[in-house]
Every structure is written in C-alpha cells, then in structure tokens.
C-alpha cells in the first residue's frame, strides 16, 4: 500500500428507526485491490453499499474517497468522482435496447469531461463496451431490448454500465447470485481483467468459494458490525466468523 488509501470508511453507522443496520464499521480500500465483504443475510452489506455510494445518508461516521470527505454527497456526484456500483436486483432500462442502456452513463459529466469531446460515435463506444463485458458483437444481442435478456447478460450489462463511467472503484453487490457455475466461471476472468486495468473493487458476495478466487482480503459483517478482517484463510479459521456465518454451512 502506498500512502493514503483510496477509500476510507470511519466509524460508519446507520440506524433505521430502532434497527441498527450498520454499526461502527471501519475499513480501508487500497488502490488496485479487490476487497470482499461477506456476512449472513441481513447483516447490513447492501446498506453499506448504499451508504458508500450516497443512496442512504449515514447516521454517524465519515467516508473519504481520494482524500475528499464524501459523506452526504448525492449519488450522482459520487459516481462522477469515479465511485460506482452494481445493483443486487437487476433492473435494466428494460424498454431500451442493450447498447442504449450504456448511452445513459456515457452522457454523464464524468465521461464527457474525461473524453474531452473525443468520445466519437457514442453508439459505437457503447457496443465496444458491451463486447468488452462479453456480448457477442455479431449476434444481435446488443440490439435486443434489455427487458428480454437472460440474467447472465443482465449481470454483464450492469457491469458494462459501470465500466462505461470509467470508474476508479466499482462496488459489486452480489454479481454472482442467481448465476450457474459456468456463468460465474466466465465472469471471473472479466473481473480479473478489470482489476488488471486498474479498477479497484469491493465485492459483496454470498458465493465464498468463487469470491476467494478473486480476493485476498475479506471483511466480515454480522448484525451490522465488522467482526473480522484478513485473508480468506484467517477469516475462515476465526471462530467468531464460523459461529456467525459459516457454522451451519460447514456442518456435515
């Protein structure tokens, strides 16, 4: 790690009425790494994503991105700084064709500024990005309405929507959920390539085996609290984690 972390979350808390969804969570994200966030259902993982990306305002705590305190910023402002996310529930712009889904992020101020008026044919750029995330160019898939695409393509489309923004950090909220083993196996090289290209990622996941192929640092949440952090081996051997999360799964 060189110097300042890319993203720093300090004493972050959020309560919805009497429910403490996220409680006093601290972690850092270094540039270029893939950080896994795991935890049982209802442990506050998605709330954490919503907090970091500005969809939900934290009760207390701060979030610092690239040295700027982004706590309380609106989602589009945070996205324009280069921090974007996928959604757990896939809802594409279903009435638009797949490639037109990408026209939306390509019209963001961030892309306009970084491209500096040299974006060229925006439709062609969108189709290039779709090819990058695994849409066959020759097939008519990019021209189909997004509402008619199968789940595997929707996940790729969601990643494409993030990539189109030319982000520095992507937070993936359960991209593997609902996919078959073969679909996951074809998605993993894509995520690895994104990391090689310099994109930092946080992966919220339930599929641990697949997650551990990608990451070497994991944060564990239970009932909104961070109970462990470290390499997959360290975390898995932690008794507290086993009790909270893996106990039932390892029972033979």
């Amino acid at each position: 790690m060189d110097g300042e972390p890319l993203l720093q979350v300090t004493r972050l808390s959020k309560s919805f009425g009497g429910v403490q969804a996220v409680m006093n969570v601290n972690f850092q994200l270094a540039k270029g790494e893939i950080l896994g966030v795991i935890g049982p259902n209802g442990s506050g993982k998605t709330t954490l994503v919503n907090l970091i990306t500005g969809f939900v305002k934290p009760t207390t705590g701060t979030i610092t991105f690239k040295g700027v305190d982004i706590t309380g910023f609106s989602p589009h402002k945070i996205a324009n700084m280069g921090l974007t996310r996928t959604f757990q529930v896939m809802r594409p712009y279903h009435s638009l064709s797949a490639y037109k889904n990408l026209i939306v992020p390509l019209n963001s101020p961030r892309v306009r500024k970084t491209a500096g008026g040299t974006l060229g044919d925006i439709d062609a750029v969108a189709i290039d990005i779709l090819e990058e995330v695994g849409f066959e160019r020759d097939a008519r898939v990019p021209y189909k309405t997004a509402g008619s695409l199968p789940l595997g393509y929707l996940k790729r489309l969601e990643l494409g929507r993030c990539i189109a923004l030319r982000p520095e950090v992507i937070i993936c909220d359960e991209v593997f959920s609902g996919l078959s083993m073969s679909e996951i196996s074809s998605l993993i090289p894509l995520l690895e390539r994104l990391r090689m290209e310099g994109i930092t990622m946080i992966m919220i996941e339930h599929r641990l085996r697949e997650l551990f192929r990608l990451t070497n640092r994991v944060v564990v949440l239970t009932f909104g609290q961070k109970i462990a952090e470290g390499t997959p081996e360290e975390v898995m051997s932690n008794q507290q984690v086993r009790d909270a999360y893996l106990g039932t799964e390892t029972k033979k």
Partner: protein
Amino acid sequence: MESKSRRKKRLDRSIKVRTEGLYAVTSWAEMGYLFMPRAVLVLGLLLLPLVLDMYWQRVLCSAGIYALLAIGFDFLAECVGLVCLGGAFFIGAGGYIAGLLNEYFHWSPLITIPVATVLGAGISTLVLVPCLRLRGIYFAIVSFMFPLFAVFIIIALNVFGGTEGITALDTFPNVWVELYLILAAVIISLFALRRLVSEDMGIVLRGIMDNDQAVRASGINITAYKSKAVFIAALLGCFGGAYLSHLYGWLGISLFAMDFSILPIAACVMGGMGTLVGPVLGAFILTPMSEALRGFGQLRVVLYCLILIGFMVYKPEGIMNALQRKYHQFEVWEEV
C-alpha cells in the same frame, strides 16, 4: 370466429425491415413508405382549415391547444414516467402572463406570446421541481392540485381581475393567423419532441423512467433531467395558454379549468399513448366530437364517456398504435 387450432401471427413487412436502417433506402417505394405517413399528417393538418367554415375553424384552434397539452402529457408520462395532471396550470400560467403583459404594458401578442411561453414554463417548472421526487400517482395528485391552488390565490387576493378576469385584450389580426399559428406550433412541437426522445437526452429520460437509481449511480443528476423535461412540456402548455388568451382577447380563472388537465389524457388514451402523434390525433377527434355532441345537451357527457369507455375496452392501445401496426406488419394465420 377463430378456430382453436389456428392463431394470428404478425410479421414485419419486408419494406419495414429494409427501411429500418436508413442507409438501406434505395427506391422511391421505400422512401415513400417512410415519408408518406408524415406527409399525410402535415398536409392534412395544413389543409384542414381550408375546408371548414368559421365555426369549425374556431373549434380547430382549441383542438390545437388540446393537442399541444396532449403531446406534453404523453411525453412526460411515456418518456419520463411523470404523470402530470397540471396541464391547466400550464395554460393558466401562459395565459395570465401573456394577458397581463398585454393589459398593463400594451405589448403586442408578437412579444407577449414568446415571453409568456418561456416565463410561464419557467414558473411551472419551479413550482413542480419540489414534487419531482414523487412518483406515479403521488406526482399526479400533487400536480393536479396546482391549478386549483392558483385559482384560490387569484380569488382570495382579488388580483389580476379576480373572478371577473380581464377583457378586451389584443386579438390576432385575422382568422388565418390564428389557425396557422397553432397548427404550426403543433407540427413543430410534434416533430421536435419525436426527435428529442430518440436523442441521447430522450434515452437518459427513458432510463430514469425505467430505473432512476441506476441512472443516479451512472453519475447523472436526475432532478436536473426531469426539470428539463417538465420545462419542455410546460413550454407547449404555456404557449397554448398565451395563444388562448389572445384568441378570445380575454383572461380569467377558467384558464385553470380542469378540462385542460383531463381532456389531454382522454386524447392520449384514444390516440395511443407513447406515440406522441396519437395524442394529436386524439385531440383533433375528441374536441370536435365534444362540439358536435353539444346538441344533446346534458346527455353529451354520457355519450362522450361511452365513446371513451368503448375505446378502453375494444382498442386499449389507441388509434395510432393500431394504425402503426397495420402499416408496419401484416397478419397471417398460423397452424398451432
């Protein structure tokens, strides 16, 4: 009647498939296929006043105003996802601004109409911006409230002529100016909006309608985009209002009448939602129909409703969607 073992199948006409990418257009037949519907619409609208008498020409003018409102409603509802029942507010804002500028500053309609269009749309947008975070029915209810709100303010404070209104405003020099001003406005806004919805801005707006969270995560300020869309729809309505007050040389609280909020919706249902041209067609059918039924007195409303219900039951997609399908596709019977 259909037998059980067969069903209807719809296929795109080959000429439609060929003309989908415009570069492929090679023959007069294909160009005609593309431009004929547009030519029929534009020429039809432009020639219509020539065959009508004085009375029906006036009806045509108000049909044009309803058509503008209906285009705006359709644009907001089907391309942005905002069901806006504030059409009467647009008419009222445009009408009052134009009328007051004419009454107190003696500006000619040549200036008051453009000023009222832009200023009125600006005010309407400012009023609606706080409600933009509401969705669906909630936005509809709140936007419906604003015309009533404006009426009560005018009555309570007794400003702008109060309940009496202001009469003897400047009118248009002759009937042809009246007719072709509103028809030109309808045609221009129709084609401009059709263009807009297929451009990048239209795509972003459609994205907001389908999933606003994903649009926000894509770095786009949805409030700014929605405000722009409301402003555009309000421009049409406010132009209609400004035109209306100069058409009759009169302004009053009935510019905020509920008709201006409701009739455009009926026109959209009848004409076909989401087509932009359908609502125009709907307005040009419904407004004269409502006039023609005047002879039935109170029964008029009942007949009017029956016709609308008939449409909802037998042609819920609207006239334009049905016509487009007939034009672009043919039906064959298929063995099951």
